[in-house]
């Protein structure tokens, strides 16, 4: 009995040769199994043709697609009830709008991230008051941005600690550089109260 079942299983799996299949059918009650065998043989034929490629010709494919489209359209118009209408409106109007909005948003975010500048940009290098270090001033200085502004100086100042290059210099050189710095500062401070040009001509270009 077990052998018989295994033989049928192998038949279904297509593992039997033609002779073995014939033998199995002869050994069985053919009248009883005949319809099943025929149906299975047909199914197997379809599966084989499916593996080898489409059973339909290209013309057949076109007809099939056309029929499916008509069927879908018919379904939509047949179901033109009040529940289906909003869905159609959503699909036709809102979905494209939402998709467009997403792309615009993505583009905007991308542009904002790429361009650190606001306001008219410079000719050479998009010079900017904005951030390499996150410092940023927006036209509407929100509290969050304001906190960034207020906290940024400390970080920036630390980064600007006096150059070790200068500390490595001898006292005389440091003093001389300090003197230049002080003289420059005083000159700037004085000019603030008396902002006039002197008669000395501009340097040769």
């Amino acid at each position: 009995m077990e052998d018989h079942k295994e033989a049928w299983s192998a038949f279904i799996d297509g593992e039997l040769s033609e002779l073995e299949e014939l033998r199995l059918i002869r050994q069985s009650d053919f009248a009883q199994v005949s319809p099943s065998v025929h149906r299975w043989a047909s199914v197997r034929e379809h599966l084989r043709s499916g593996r080898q490629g489409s059973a339909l010709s290209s013309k057949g494919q076109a007809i099939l697609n056309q029929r499916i489209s008509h069927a879908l359209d018919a379904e939509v118009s047949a179901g033109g009830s009040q529940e289906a209408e909003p869905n159609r409106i959503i699909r036709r109007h809102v979905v494209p709008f939402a998709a467009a909005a997403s792309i615009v948003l993505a583009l905007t975010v991308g542009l904002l991230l790429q361009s650190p500048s606001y306001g008219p940009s410079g000719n050479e290098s998009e010079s900017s008051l904005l951030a390499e270090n996150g410092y940023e001033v927006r036209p509407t200085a929100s509290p969050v941005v304001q906190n960034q502004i207020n906290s940024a100086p400390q970080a920036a100042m630390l980064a600007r600690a006096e150059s070790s290059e200068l500390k490595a210099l001898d006292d005389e050189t440091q003093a001389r550089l300090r003197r230049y710095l002080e003289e420059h500062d005083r000159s700037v401070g004085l000019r603030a109260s008396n902002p006039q040009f002197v008669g000395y001509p501009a340097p040769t270009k």
Partner: protein
Amino acid sequence: MNQICQFWTPLKSSRWFKSLAVLMVMLSAAAGAETPEITALSEDERDPDYWIAKMSSSLLRENYRGVFALARGHQFSSLEVDHRFRDEVVQEQLTQLNGPLRRIVREGDHIRCYHESENTSLNHSVLLGPFSQSFNALLQAESDNYVVKVIGRDRVAGREAVMLTVQPSANDRFGFVLWLDRSKGLLLQSHMVDRGRILEVLQFATIEFDVTTELEDTDMLHQGWAVHSLSEEVLTANEEPTFKVKWTPRGYRVVSANKHRIHFSDGVSDFSVFVEQGRELPKLSTEIEGRSIVTRPLRGRPGQITIVGALPLQTAERLAESVEPIIF
């Protein structure tokens, strides 16, 4: 595959492109539109030139008293300022609140520095006002080297302020963010910025306008203090320098000069070029307290070029390369 086709089908339709176009128009309109903070300002107040002119005037003409902080590099100073404008003359007392007690007293062009302790060195850096950069409307008005914009409103030292950006047109100089008193136009806060890095911060903590009291008598106030004049040190005659600077960034002009120094300004930022004999300095490009310092040996003659000021290092280096001695 069918699902992908269903997703892309609407994208192919012209309706989708119409939606995209409508959104782009809305977005660009929103970007161009002024924020509510700015629209709350009057038409005059939305004009940056109005603020530059007002600030320039208020630097001299307002009577105010306040405390401000200045941070440059690792240096942080707190100072009290008392400023009067009487009979077209500026009177100002600037008291250092941390470190050794020093007071700078300005009366017109005369500037003296008083030291409480006679033992302290008179050789020190001097801040001659709350405005390290002498914004100058005269220079700025004709300049296209900066783009000035009113960008919003804020609150500084308990007062309503208008925010401006002074953005350089090129990367050869620094930019600023300014907070000006909305009523008086005085600079209440400023950041000097180099591509996002803040190099210098000035901020008033308290300020009082329309002060009518007279400044304290300096002789009474400083009895027993050491004093030295700053104006004599700085107000040198405008002598012909012994060198020339063949290249400067666009818009910079000479504002003072003597034999060994030329001071340039574009109305917003300043730098000095020094050329001196003596022991050669090492070739150096560095930043000290928010200012760039570049030193180079002078070509063709013994001497040393030093550039000091609020400039990016690359600009200062290019300047140094362009300095040449004048051969008489």
